[in-house]
């Protein structure tokens, strides 16, 4: 594929790997977190971990919108479809996430819930136009990348005077989650692996710019490199992080100069600011309540807010007691340290958030990397 194969070139990768290895100072370990599930997926799918020197440890962060979606929110979406008989439009990968009462959206569908998989917010709006006699709710999840389209469809629905469309807003924010990660008790505890730098998601920064990370990098003295999603992008970003750490710098650097600017997309930011406001707190699956980490519709858009329009109270649902997702998401534990991993918790039957989507730390390790846990097999290579 033109313009893509160039960023997946194996020979360039080998050369880059050699440079990273050469720049790693002897006797020093480097622990970096790739925040975003897209990066986790890229690292797993292309086998990037194999190419990195052993001194570098990549910690998979909580930036998978499906994984961090708390069970209580999925329960709400299912209630909208089953009890309130609304058409619920959702992005595909939320379909399988386990909810309360051994349900998931897919299983609710089998029980008669009208749940439609859509590829964009605009498709959800089209459903509302096509079904004027039914309530249509868009299950709006995701980070800053999917928020502007939700804002636009709400505005569009208002402009068209659509009375049957609303949004269950579960949009979450990247910078506040990264900050939360470093401030948690577990991360500060003695013996915990300190995260020395972050690989930041380029598509988020295309919207918000690189600027929102600056106060965080300065305050916590942690370098951030905004990175693209092709495997060479990720490797170059890791190299940039190694050099920042070696030189004692803690800056926000932009690897993805192809599209990311410091200011980001102002028009998208305006649309989001017009429709959404900060929630004081929001539950993240695996992390618990995180202050100012999510968005809800502003009061003037209340009639498009499914939480206001329908009687669906929010009830938090705890994960399995032995689930280590919280510690794994903060980089304190590895998936193989969890007793549930690969036994009762597998992608077919996920118990915790990290196993839910292929972007989650546990699912990625299960799907692409678990052969490394069995030395005999790895040596046969």
């Amino acid at each position, binding site marked *: 594929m033109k313009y893509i194969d160039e960023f997946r070139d194996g020979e360039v990768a080998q050369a880059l790997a050699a440079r990273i290895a050469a720049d790693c100072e002897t006797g020093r370990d480097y622990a970096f977190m790739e925040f975003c599930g897209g990066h986790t997926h890229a690292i797993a799918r292309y086998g990037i971990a194999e190419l990195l020197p052993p001194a570098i440890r990549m910690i998979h962060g909580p930036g998978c*919108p499906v994984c961090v979606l708390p069970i209580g929110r999925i329960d709400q979406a299912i209630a909208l479809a089953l009890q309130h008989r609304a058409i619920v439009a959702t992005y595909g990968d939320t379909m399988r996430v386990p909810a309360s009462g051994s349900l998931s959206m897919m299983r609710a569908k089998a029980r008669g819930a009208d749940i439609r998989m859509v590829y964009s917010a605009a498709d959800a709006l089209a459903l509302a136009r096509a079904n004027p006699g039914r309530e249509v709710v868009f299950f709006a999840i995701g980070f800053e990348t999917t928020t502007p389209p939700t804002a636009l469809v709400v505005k569009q629905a208002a402009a068209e005077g659509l009375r049957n469309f609303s949004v269950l807003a579960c949009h979450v924010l990247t910078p506040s989650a990264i900050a939360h990660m470093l401030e948690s008790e577990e991360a500060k505890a003695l013996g915990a692996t300190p995260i020395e730098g972050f690989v930041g998601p380029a598509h988020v920064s295309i919207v918000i710019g690189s600027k929102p990370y600056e106060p965080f990098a300065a305050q916590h003295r942690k370098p951030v490199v905004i990175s693209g999603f092709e495997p060479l992008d990720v490797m170059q970003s890791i190299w940039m992080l190694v050099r920042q750490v070696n030189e004692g710098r803690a800056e926000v650097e932009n690897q993805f100069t192809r599209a990311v600017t410091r200011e980001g997309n102002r028009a998208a930011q305006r649309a989001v600011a017009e429709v959404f406001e900060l929630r004081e707190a929001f539950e993240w699956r695996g992390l618990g309540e995180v202050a100012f980490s999510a968005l809800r519709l502003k009061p003037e858009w209340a009639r498009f807010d499914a939480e206001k329009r329908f009687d669906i109270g929010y009830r938090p649902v705890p994960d399995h007691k032995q689930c280590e997702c919280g510690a794994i998401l903060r980089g304190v534990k590895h998936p193989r340290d969890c007793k549930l991993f690969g036994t009762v918790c597998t992608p077919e039957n996920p118990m915790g958030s990290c196993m839910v989507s292929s972007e989650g730390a546990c699912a990625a390790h299960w799907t692409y990397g678990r052969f490394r846990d069995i030395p005999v097999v790895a040596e046969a290579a």
Partner: protein
Amino acid sequence: MKKVYLRPLDFRHGRVDMNHGAGGRAGAQLVDELFARAFDNPALRVGDDGAVVDLPPGHRLVMSTDGHVISPLVFPGGDIGCLAVHGTINDVAMMGALPFALSASFVLEEGFSLAELKRIVESMAAAARDAGVPIVTGDTKVVEKGKGDGVFIATTGLGALPKDRRIGGALARPGDALLLSGSIGDHGVAVLSQRESLGFEAGVKSDTAALHGLVAALLAAVPEGAVRTLRDPTRGGLATTLNEIARQAGVGMRLQEAAIPVHAEVEAACELLGLDPLYIANEGKLVAAVAPEHASAALAALRAHPLGREAACIGQVVDDAQHFVQLATRFGGQRIVDWLTGEPLPRIC
């Protein structure tokens, strides 16, 4: 006595109704004017409750069945009709058997257009004729509107397997070469591109085809026993098929990503939708585990056949107690190719 006048079926504006499945004259008329006419062959012409077919001497009988439910019914490169013929022929052929008869059972939904049904049945008849495998018996049922998705077709195939031939998933051994007969993902992407909610122009055609000719060419090119396993990577794609074989045979596999043919359009569509071609369905491809000393002759035989021009050796069977299918990525890394979890769902970001 005067012959009862029967108005011919209206294949332009007519629709399937409950009478067509009631076992009366309307049903008989649908069979006569559509199915019997399109599928016509000596065994079917007899018109009994079942067909009598001969099994060539020195052979055992192979039987395989497949239900076809696909949306949309017509897609670039094929439709549910030819798919129902190819799918079952291929399942029989993957046993190393020569398919020689098919049955077809239709479940029609009340209100389904007779014009579309005719088109599907004719495509099915053409596929059976081209493959040289007659549809010798069949059945039609009608369900009420809303209880079916237009038309469902179940086909069963019979094949003749030479008495001493052994081909199966459990027979793959460490050292065997893994041959793939061509590019992957074409069928799945062609179907996806037609789904109403997607509506993109992929320019990709389904690869749906009957593979018994290709199998015969392959088996003729190498000594008996050299081809250990044959399988068509349909639902779940190549990844799932290889995992099935690995589990059945108690082996592992090592694949080279760079060796697996994927058309640029398919790769682009998968990239866009967040799907992996390894998990996308094929309807005209086979994967074979072949004894290493005969691998190059087998590959040459596949490539010499029109349905195997893009055939490639994609990896080896290895010893592995964990039965892992591993892939050396084009990028230079290594990863597991696992079973498909649930339905392939596009990723959000």
